[in-house]
């Protein structure tokens, strides 16, 4: 994945020569330039930048101002300082401010490139995957409760975005000038991506506050609607109204299942219907025997994909409880709730 690097310096001649000098590394990173801190902030908003290299003395906003803006708004983006007025105090100040590297002018372009490549390599310390389905991979991150920063590139459009996970929970997302849920929706609509994983997450605050599966489902729905294909696809999952607990003498397994799913997953469960159907009993008893053969106990629930527009989750009972679900439903979560 080619990374975007932003170089900021008020010396325009130096910017040109740095850009030219770094040209030979264009398979590793592409270079954006700015001649002051304010312009750099605009470029940070509009592009998914992986690294900032900045001079300190600039107007209208100097390098320290830019450094503190990056630390506050883009804590995952490393900053390298280049300056012609290097003193130990200044270097100390820059490092205290969050800079990961400090280079005194004049410098050799190759030294800067090595520093940049070393810093960028940390972005992918958890590995890089090519041409993967983003939805499937992200559900895996959630299930494995990973803390990481994932940088993705849509293979069809070349757009880039970043997702921040803390213990499997999506905390924040960024794609150009979009942040939070808006950025997540956009990123989740990408089908095939190249992604790199960094095993840290600098984001402290959860700006998403939503279930990942639900977000992915919503993103797919928005995408389908945009493509005008909504009519050709299986009907979007209906909202499942939470049926108020009514004190009755008879236990209703269907309402109980319906309410448990609605309570835990809301209207993003992908559940289309819940009903009793004894025609599944035969299949369930065959499957029960498989468990008996391997001595792994009684069967609890089963997910079945028969290639129809909707799938089924079955729960064993006197009469099998059938939950008809959309193919993109969070099936592991539903089965977890049932069990």
């Amino acid at each position, binding site marked *: 994945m080619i990374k975007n690097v932003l170089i900021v310096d008020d010396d325009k001649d130096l910017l040109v020569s740095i850009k030219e000098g770094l040209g030979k590394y264009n398979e590793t990173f592409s270079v954006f330039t700015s001649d002051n801190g304010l312009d750099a902030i605009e470029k940070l908003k509009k592009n998914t930048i992986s690294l900032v290299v900045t001079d300190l003395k600039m107007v209208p906003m100097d390098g320290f101002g830019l450094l503190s803006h990056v630390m506050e708004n883009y804590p995952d983006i490393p900053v390298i300082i280049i300056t012609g007025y290097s003193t130990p105090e200044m270097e100390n100040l820059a490092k205290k401010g969050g800079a990961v590297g400090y280079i005194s002018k004049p410098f050799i372009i190759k030294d800067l490139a090595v520093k940049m490549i070393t810093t960028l390599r940390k972005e992918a310390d958890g590995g890089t995957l090519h041409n993967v389905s983003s939805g499937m991979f992200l559900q*895996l991150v959630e299930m494995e409760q990973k803390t990481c920063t994932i940088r993705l590139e849509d293979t069809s459009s070349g757009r880039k975005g970043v997702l921040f996970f803390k213990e499997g929970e999506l905390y924040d997302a960024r794609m150009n000038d979009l942040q939070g849920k808006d950025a997540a929706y956009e990123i989740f609509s990408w089908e095939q991506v190249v992604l790199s994983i960094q095993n840290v997450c600098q984001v402290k605050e959860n700006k998403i506050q939503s279930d990942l599966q639900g977000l992915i489902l919503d993103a797919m729905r928005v995408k389908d609607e945009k493509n005008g294909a909504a009519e050709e696809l299986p009907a979007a999952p209906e909202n499942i109204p939470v049926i108020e607990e009514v004190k009755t003498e008879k236990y209703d397994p269907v309402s109980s299942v319906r309410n448990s799913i609605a309570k835990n997953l809301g209207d993003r469960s992908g559940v289309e219907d819940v009903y009793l159907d004894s025609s599944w009993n035969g*299949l369930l008893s065959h499957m029960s025997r498989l468990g008996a*053969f391997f001595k792994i106990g009684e069967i609890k629930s*089963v*997910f079945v994909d*028969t290639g129809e527009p909707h799938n089924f989750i079955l729960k064993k009972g006197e009469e099998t409880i059938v939950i008809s679900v959309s193919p993109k439903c969070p099936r592991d979560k539903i089965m977890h709730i049932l069990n």
Partner: protein
Amino acid sequence: MKELFNDIMCVEGIKGILLFSFHGEVIFKSFLSSVPEDPETRDWALFFDAINKIKESDLIFEDGRIYIRRTELGFLVILMSSFAPVALVRLNCDVLLPSLKPAKTSKGLGRFFKR
């Protein structure tokens, strides 16, 4: 075939992999721990007849899970513990199964000329 399934066998919590033909014959089996009974001693025809229309199934039992996936050769049955990362297993199947295809039989005159 064992090499093909190596990535799945390495996933934490996997106990064994079986590949059955559509009629229930065991084509391949590999277990990381002993199983109560050799699957080849049992007639699986009725079971695979019952699940004939299934493309994919995830079975949760009290003490384990079984993931079943239809392939071009038959049904892949993966035995795992209750806490195995099933999403990772599914992902591995998505990646590996396209390469699990029946061996091509040569057609035409070529079949008479052995290399």
